[in-house]
């Protein structure tokens, strides 16, 4: 999400490592302190065309692109 860019020095796309989304977030947080909390507080993740709510333990591959998006609800 654009609002998280300040944590990453303005970059929209960053590379990170992890076997799960949670590990990926941990890696991001080490490099961009504060980003981890922000992502865990209010993000879902788009992975391989599917949106996952609370994606902490979703497993990912080395080349997976993870899109952090705002949590969605509905009416």
């Amino acid at each position, binding site marked *: *999400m654009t609002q998280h860019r300040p944590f990453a020095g303005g970059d929209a796309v960053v590379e990170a490592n992890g076997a799960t989304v949670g590990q990926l977030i941990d890696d991001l947080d080490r490099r961009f302190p*504060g980003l981890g909390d922000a992502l865990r507080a*209010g993000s879902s993740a788009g992975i391989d065309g599917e949106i996952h709510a609370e994606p902490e333990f979703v497993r990912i591959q080395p080349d997976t692109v993870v899109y952090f*998006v*705002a949590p969605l*609800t*509905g009416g």
Partner: protein
Amino acid sequence: MTATENPKTYKWVGTRPIRHDGYDKVVGKARFAADLNLPGQLHAAYLRSPHAHANIVSIDTSAAEAMPGVKAIVTGDDFPALDITDPNHDVSINVLARGTVLYHGHAIAAVAATTKAEAQAACAAIEVEYELLPVVLGIDEAMAEGAPLANEQNYQKFVGPTDPSNIATHTPLERGDADAAMAEADIVIEREFDCAHVHQGYIEPHACVVDTGADGKANVWASSQGHFMVRAISAAVLGWETSRIKVTPAEIGGGFGGKTTVYLEPVAARLSEKAGRPVKLVMSREEVLRSSGPAPGAKLRIKIGATKDGELTAIDGWMAYQVGAYGDFAGMVGAMSVASYKFPNLKLESWGVLSNTPKTAAYRAPSAPHAAFAIESVIDDIASELEMDPIDLRLKNAAVEGDLTAMGMPHPRIGLVECLEALKASDHYQSEPAEGAARGLAVGFWFNIGEQSSATVNLNEDGTATVITGSPDIGGSRASMALMAAEELGIDVYSITPVVADTEAVGFTDVTEGSRATFATGKAVVEACRELKVELCRRAAQIMGVDEDQVAWVDGAAVSPGHGGGEGGEPLTLAAITAQAKRTGGPLTATASLNAAGAGPSFAVHCADVKVDDETGQTEIVRYTAVQDAGTAIHPSYVEGQMQGGSVQGIGWALNEEYIFSSDGVLMNPGFLDYRIPVASDLPMIETIIVEVPNPSHPYGVRGVGETGIVPPMATIGNAIKAATGVRMTSLPMSPPKVLKALDEAD
């Protein structure tokens, strides 16, 4: 009609059986929450704030306590103060005010008495001293430098520690270089729009009956879109463990997002606890309109650039949503919902802005309709400026699989192009508008969501089945669950009893919202059925005397090549297996629970022919068609019903529905006479075209269908009015006075 045939052929999915709960609903036996009465039951009523913003200096209930029939009184002091960071903090102070009232109609106290009239009389006898605070009512006013605060406990979300603010959220989204693209565009159109607050307008007011026993446990019967949500929020507001609360879902008389939160249940629970008797609490229509959650109002500025051959190259948008007296996520979604077109360059920001008006709630595709009204209006103006067919312009730019939404994530397989082509080929679009009428169309998008669902399927000894879920049925979902189970198990849909069970009889299930019930809960039902089929084959193997791996489930029966001598083996029906359940290992039952990923976005295209009376400004809808991608229509009648219902809610939003506030924040039209939802004589038939581009993430290809239908109508009608009159309406509702004024100003 169905435009694209689903490539798969099913026996039950796609048929139109009579819904299982239908009989009770046509004979008057269906039990909605207000229909329940318990022995010894008390009736409760609220004292509500006469001011839109004030500190409560004191509350004196002593006179009220002495009134006839009064058994219990509660105020905010009867509930724990939740920490500001608690996700239920806002709902807890909305249920009953603590220290400050934040909008006219904010609940301050509640009384339980022998009769409703006694409860109301006692409320009137409660003495409250107020210290008035400045009232913040408009978006511009709230965002102005030095504006008074609408709610001193609101902090902007996601930006770390800040000062209290009238801003709930700020969501900027960007890709490419919108400024540069705009500078290079052949045509740029920019307009400002505004939208009034509207209400979901469900016909059944909020209602509950709660019996808190001496054991401290509360039995709650409630009308809601999610009884597990009612349990969770009630527990949080009361400071109880969830295990103290059992919520039984009553039938729900419409929700549309408005029953995804709690107003009554914790208050009734505390009153019942204090009085030692069951308490019934039912809102009046006036209370519903004043004090439940409408959809946000909004102001939007949209600028779109295009090449002269109709390629949309950039969008620059500013959207502010008035979310009411509490921080809310509603303002985020406006920008996120920009997903229908490729837009290589995009710069959007949306804001959630507070005001001293009721806490807003979800309403069908929340926040997307406002954005679509603005964007689809501007796109229509580009089409007419370029003299392009409005469908062709949209087809040229329509998002397909792999194109990015404004959030930056690529679309999965979607059906926008198919919807546009279906409309283009339709009888409606191929026919000329009637004499004096003109045509408009617009596109709508909604994400749809997954979330958590549970389902239990019990096979009965005679081969019938019970399908138990935790998703309140707000428009035919029981029938959809039964159809999917019938398809899986190969038994008659009427042999299946679909049940919506209470919080102690089925696994946790999230709210029926986000068009998720048939998708996510349906997925859980299918998983449970598939687990049962494995077990059925195992049991059949015992009966047949063959190895498990020799048995397969085919067309609703277990078959084994070695069994019975027939060519493919003599099939063993489900009933034949359940009849021997006790011998083969006991009851046949399976449960599946999941957090469903992969909800399929749903697109819609609507088309309206309207006549405008240029002397009175009245708009008549003479023909209306809704096209929508359902993925797969499990029960097409109820898919059509969702499309038609969403269309007509949108028509009301477009033409006449609005919250009218006085300058001191009092809602001036708190009834169905002046909050004008469409009546039957306002409308033509609503033609439907179901497009089926299956969602690869659902076993039957289901996309949710409940919400997208409300996204296109406002722009559809605005575009038709433009075609009829040449005047672009930019303010909702497009009511006769506004249309006439715009026509006069254009002369």
